[in-house]
């Protein structure tokens, strides 16, 4: 059982089964790590914003650097119009980052390695961005599918491609994060299994691989959170500033 590299993604109930109507909303290990991630985010940023000293201490510096990092990312990609959505993108980036990072601790559960979680986030972003686009531009938002400077002959083809690419946004966004997390963790587990099965003689090679992979996975954990947030910003930019 433990050797199965996919068993780390198993969701299991903690405590009793909770049912609301036909829906099972039991508390699971996934719920536990969602709560842990959000609590640590709130704790860190609460501590980081409590005192306002001119010379910030370490935790305040961390909070303020994250704030300016995300705020710069948003203003660079989506412009000043995206300011009202700063809190959402900040929460999104921090949530994905902390879930990814929590997953790097051995024996933990990676919330973002589940397609349903990333898909709900991506679908929410997709629907939200589309609604914002229609509110800001009315039916003019449909011009997004008609790029300027395209010959009239190619236009039907291009419009179809644009619509397909637009509709595939939530899928690409969610699958990118989920697949990265799952593949990385599976690979680490596989190499970990090699260390055991090859024993003291041959186990050193996969062990060194595992060490290198851990570093890589931490990078990927940060990078995927960043990519998730910056793609959200880019979609938001399309909705706020219609460039086509």
């Amino acid at each position, binding site marked *: 059982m433990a050797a199965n590299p996919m068993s780390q993604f198993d969701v299991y109930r903690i405590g009793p089964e909770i049912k609301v109507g036909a829906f*099972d909303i039991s508390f699971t290990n996934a719920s536990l790590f969602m709560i842990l991630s959000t609590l640590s985010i709130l704790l860190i940023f609460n501590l980081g914003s409590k005192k*306002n000293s001119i010379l910030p201490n370490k935790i305040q510096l961390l909070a303020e650097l994250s704030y300016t990092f995300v705020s710069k990312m948003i203003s660079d990609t989506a412009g000043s119009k995206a300011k009202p959505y700063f809190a959402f993108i900040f929460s999104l980036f921090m949530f994905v980052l902390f879930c990814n990072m929590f997953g790097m601790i051995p024996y933990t559960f990676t919330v973002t390695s589940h397609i349903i979680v990333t898909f709900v*986030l991506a679908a929410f972003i997709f629907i939200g961005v589309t609604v914002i686009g229609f509110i800001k531009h009315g039916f003019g938002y449909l011009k997004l599918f008609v790029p300027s400077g395209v010959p009239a002959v190619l236009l039907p083809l291009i419009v179809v491609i644009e619509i397909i690419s637009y509709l595939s946004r939530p899928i690409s966004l969610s699958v990118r994060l989920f697949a990265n997390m799952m593949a990385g963790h599976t690979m680490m587990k596989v190499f970990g299994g090699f260390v055991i*099965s090859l024993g003291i003689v041959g186990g050193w090679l996969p062990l060194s691989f595992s060490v290198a992979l851990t570093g890589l996975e931490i990078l990927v954990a940060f990078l995927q959170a960043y990519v998730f947030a910056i793609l959200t910003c880019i979609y938001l930019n399309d909705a706020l500033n219609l460039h086509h």
Partner: protein
Amino acid sequence: MVKKIYFQSIFFSFFFIKEAFAAESGGMPQLNPEFWISQIFWLILTFGIMYLVLSKLILPKISNNLESRKSQILENIEAAEKQREDSDAKLKEYDEIISKSKLEANSIFNQAREKALKDIGAKREVLDEQIDNEIAEAEKEIDILRKNAPDKINKIAIETSSELLQKLIGAEVNNSSISAIVDDLSKRNGDKYYGN
């Protein structure tokens, strides 16, 4: 040989483990919909609460902190600039005062020197005049003395010669004849006696 066995064992164990996994796993747990509703529920709950707390309580505070720090730094820079300007102005004032007082000191010195020179000149003139006067007076006196000297000498000569004659020859000699002789002699030898 050892190396070969080592790598072979790694290679075969890879196959072995893969087979074992294939036998055990019943597909991806992610695609098992048993806990999907639960995950969606807890995701919305936790993320929603986190978003609300962050956006309403924490992020405004951080932004406030950053703003206040920025403004305070700007204020401090402004204050520093102002103080520098003040000190520059004061330095200028000080320089001006120094140059002014230097000029003043110079003019005072010049005035004093001129005054002293004028005083000296005036005093010298007065002294020169006095000295000139005294010299002139002395010269006048000398002149008078010099003018009177031949007469007196002549008189003395006349009396002395009359007394001499009286003692020598024991007879009264006419003074007028002696004075004529003395006059005649003094006129002839006057140059020799008086250096005129």
